[in-house]
């Protein structure tokens, strides 16, 4: 086989092996690459942070997920919940997916381990699983009264009797609805909650879906977007820098990488709260590798094309 043929037709098993090594090594030995933040993530962080310490405000999280999207979306779940618990922001969680409900339970338990003082039904309320068919009625119903639309929490207790509901009634008290989703993110809330009640909406999505949602960002129908593992890593970084250290959010500081890097030591951060940033090391190496393969393939293609052209002239 000619060299040009060979570099254009590398056996995909070799590609798989090289890529596997490129992904596994940075996961085992993190490179600690810096995390740059982008406006859609900073906007969401800032918006949630504005509800800190407010008794009559809550963040509404919809877990539209299944295990297939865990590597990308689960770090987002943890980062947003951690932010809320650190900054004393009330949280409501719901899922219309049976598997999403289990992920929601996992995320709440995992984050709560680090916050022994955070109490269910006081500081957060898990609405649990609701049938897919109830998505629209519940989403619209919350506009009038959350307690009437959702009725009970995951343990079957009536919402109107829970302490967390004291000053919270409907979308007027929802700081932002965040749908962290592997399917069609945010459309339910954009179409019904935002269009009818004016509530702010944000989404967390897999990297492949992120590009689909930029039109909604530009129009302001989405106030923030976490795109893939990178979005999760950025949010983790902002939580680590500001919320953990009790520093008020500043747009200027959020963009200042060297200042941010001085605020914490990544090696001291528990694994569960830095998993996206470690994952981004692997993703960075994988991206470079894929680009290299593309370049190799194209080099072979152009050499071959040139040789063919020369033959034709002769």
């Amino acid at each position, binding site marked *: 086989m000619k060299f040009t043929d060979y570099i254009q037709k590398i056996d995909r098993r070799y590609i798989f092996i090289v890529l596997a090594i490129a992904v596994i090594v940075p996961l085992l030995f993190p490179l600690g690459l810096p995390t740059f933040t982008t406006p859609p993530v900073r906007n969401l962080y800032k918006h949630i942070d504005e509800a800190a310490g407010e008794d009559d405000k809550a963040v509404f999280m919809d877990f539209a997920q299944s295990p297939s999207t865990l590597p990308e979306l689960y770090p987002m779940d943890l980062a947003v919940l951690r932010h809320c618990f650190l900054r004393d922001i009330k949280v409501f969680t719901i899922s219309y997916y049976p598997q999403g409900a289990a992920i929601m339970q996992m995320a709440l338990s995992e984050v709560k381990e680090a916050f022994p003082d955070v109490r269910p039904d006081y500081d957060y309320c898990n609405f649990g699983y609701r049938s897919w068919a109830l998505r629209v009625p519940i989403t619209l119903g919350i506009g009038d009264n959350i307690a009437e639309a959702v009725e009970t929490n995951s343990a079957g207790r009536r919402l109107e009797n829970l302490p967390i509901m004291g000053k919270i009634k409907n979308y007027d008290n929802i700081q932002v609805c965040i749908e962290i989703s592997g399917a069609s993110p945010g459309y339910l809330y954009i179409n019904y909650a935002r269009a009818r009640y004016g509530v702010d909406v944000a989404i967390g999505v897999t990297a492949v879906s992120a590009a689909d949602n930029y039109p909604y960002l530009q129009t302001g129908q989405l106030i923030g977007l976490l795109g893939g593992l990178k979005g999760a890593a950025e949010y983790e970084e902002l939580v680590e820098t500001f919320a953990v250290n009790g520093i008020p959010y500043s747009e200027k500081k959020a963009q200042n990488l060297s200042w941010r890097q001085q605020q914490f030591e990544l090696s001291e951060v528990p694994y569960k709260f830095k998993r996206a940033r470690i994952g981004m090391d692997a993703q960075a190496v994988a*991206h470079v590798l894929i680009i290299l393969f593309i370049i190799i393939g194209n080099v072979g293609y152009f050499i071959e094309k040139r040789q063919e052209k020369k033959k034709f002239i002769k």
Partner: protein
Amino acid sequence: MKRTIPLLIVIILGMMFVMHTFVPHKVSQDFYDWFQKWIKVITSFAIVLGVGSLLMVHYSKIKRKAPAWGYSWVTIAALVGTSAVGFIWGIDEGTPYMWIFENVNAPLGATMFSLLAFYMASAAYKAFRARSMEATLLLIAAIIVMLGRVSIGNAITHWIPDITQWILNVPNLAAKRAIKLGVGLGMTATSLKIILGIERTYLGGGK
């Protein structure tokens, strides 16, 4: 009769929901509240229907010894086993149900999706060739976005993340918006055709 009754249900309910959206009257609101109660009942029956259908499909596969019929046993065992532990011990943290989810379902699901990275790498290597102007543009955009979404891009030059953001905010946004507008108009037209009884293929029957 088999087609007329479902058709009438769709036409009547479709028109009532359109009215509910545009007419904020008490009657319209009461209708909607009443429908909310009904939908909870209907959903419960849908679960029974779904489980029944799944069992029948796999029972039939096992009975006929269809190709890969052994996996049907795995599906039925997973359905019955997971449901049983959920009913007996509940679905809260620390229950066998959550153990199955965390140690079987979650790793299997995540693994399947993670395989995509390998296929994407292989497909990108084979398909991304600068054969034409359009292909070259796509190739350059892909490389810039791939670099711009990781910190290495910024380490090379801050222009790469800036150009990435521009690609996402301008050409990508324009194309996505055009597609979404097209899809939206198509959905509206199809919905109207269904509500008015012009489009009936969803009823089945083939005629």
